[in-house]
């Protein structure tokens, strides 16, 4: 009986940190020195430019469908929808698609991340789906999102919008619309978060340095 209590593999329960996605949480990792990358003005400017590019390249803007990868993609997709309405007068549906159950590292790491909301307001069949994520690195999240998307129907095309492309791709995924290309080191973390406390509207992107001791970092999570 005692062996049972202590039987959890030492590594299990960690691995959430390995996620390339990031949450727009205020004050997370506040101990580390965060290097600002994009402020809210930069982000808004990028999203407005991307909205123009989307309209420019779309044959039928009425057929667009924004799908956010949580958590970071959600505020960006909403802003993009607002921009598209402003630029072209189109009302683009915004869905949210959690990719957790489609991740390829659940078995190898044994981690069981918390699930997030999936909400697809209408069918994706025949639509041009724009997957929206905050930070794209390995491409594995986008791969998972594409698999998830196919379970909701057959879009006519899938395109990818990333606010930050930090390189280090591990899969043949390219972004169709990019806010900013940022060369980064592998260990660094790039995160979209609220710029000020209690101000969820103003977002910023920061670079967090790699934790000094990875072992200690995992334990504290």
């Amino acid at each position, binding site marked *: 009986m005692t*062996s049972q209590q202590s039987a959890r593999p030492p590594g299990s329960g960690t691995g959430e940190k390995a996620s390339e996605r990031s949450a727009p949480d205020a004050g997370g990792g506040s101990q580390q020195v965060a290097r600002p990358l994009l402020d809210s003005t930069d982000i808004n400017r990028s999203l407005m430019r991307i909205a123009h590019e989307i309209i420019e390249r779309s044959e039928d803007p009425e057929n667009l469908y924004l799908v956010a990868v949580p958590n970071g993609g959600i505020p960006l997709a909403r802003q993009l929808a607002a921009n598209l309405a402003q630029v072209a007068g189109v009302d683009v549906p915004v869905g949210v698609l959690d990719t957790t159950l489609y991740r390829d590292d659940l078995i190898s790491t044994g981690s069981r991340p918390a699930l997030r909301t999936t909400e697809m307001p209408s069918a994706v069949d025949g639509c041009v789906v724009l997957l929206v994520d905050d930070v794209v690195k390995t491409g594995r999240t986008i791969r998972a999102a594409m698999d998830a998307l196919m379970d909701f129907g057959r879009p006519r095309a899938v395109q990818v919008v990333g606010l930050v492309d930090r390189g280090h791709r591990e899969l043949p995924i390219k972004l169709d619309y990019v806010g900013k290309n940022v060369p980064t080191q592998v260990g660094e973390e790039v995160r979209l978060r609220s710029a000020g406390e209690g101000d969820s509207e103003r977002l910023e992107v920061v670079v967090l340095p790699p934790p000094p001791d990875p072992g200690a970092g995992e334990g504290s999570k």
Partner: protein
Amino acid sequence: MIGRDLLGIEDLDREDIVRILDTAEHMVEIGEREVKKVPTLRGRTVVNLFFEASTRTRASFEIAGKRLSADVINFTPSASSLKKSESILDTARTLDAMDPDAVVVRHSVAGVPRRIADVLGAPVINAGDGAHEHPTQALLDALTVRQQKGRVEGLTVTIIGDILHSRVARSNIYAFRKLGAEVRLAAPPPMIPAGVECLGVKAYTSLREALDGADVVMALRIQNERLGGAYVPSIREYSATFGLDRAKLDFAKDDVIVMHPGPVNRGVELSHDLADHRPSVILDQVRNGVALRMAVLYLFAGRATTPGSREVAGGAG
């Protein structure tokens, strides 16, 4: 933190329960999709090891496993081999050699899942053991209450029926107490276990008092097959005194919900009309059962990656 096996609600703390319920809430959405399947447990094997007959729970686990893309094997050892306790462990060891990623166990004797967990490398999920616990039933009940009421804390939950023989009651008492609800029991005195107050519940022999102000009423199945009629003078008398109908429900709150773990003896625990219509939420319970078991398989199955890791980890720790 959630342990390796799910043997009973008694072993869980409030955070564990909430984590399972939160996960299940997201699993509900998968059941509403056109393609009700995600690839999460692809290549993983879930074994349903049912020593005791069960249709509903087994089907629920089977669908849950399949919706997560696991391979689900139903293993129903013949009744003759049950009598020797040795053969249970032999069966378990044989199964273990086939490297399952989770084993779901039901047995008519309390404690068998725990005994099996001691010899298995794979995580064990208790699907009901004797009159001990039925953790996934209690969790799906808690999920249903949370969905219907928006919360569990502060609610009054009245459980009616054969508490003494009910693993559902026991698991529900643990679950609802840990989630901060008030739990009342109502039954004929022989069906109330002595000393049950130490679980933090109050026992009533008057249904009317037990129902006064209740938010949730849960009727338990009268198990004729287990009782042999020894605990109540007659089923008709039980039904007249403790069977729920709309008139008796007037004592509870206006927005009371009625639950039952199924299968319902119509006209005994619940009137015909209550078994099928609001405020009963029995079919919601069944639907939530699949989502809840998906959550349990997601959180427990295939986490210990190597068979026998228990011994290694236990020795090191």
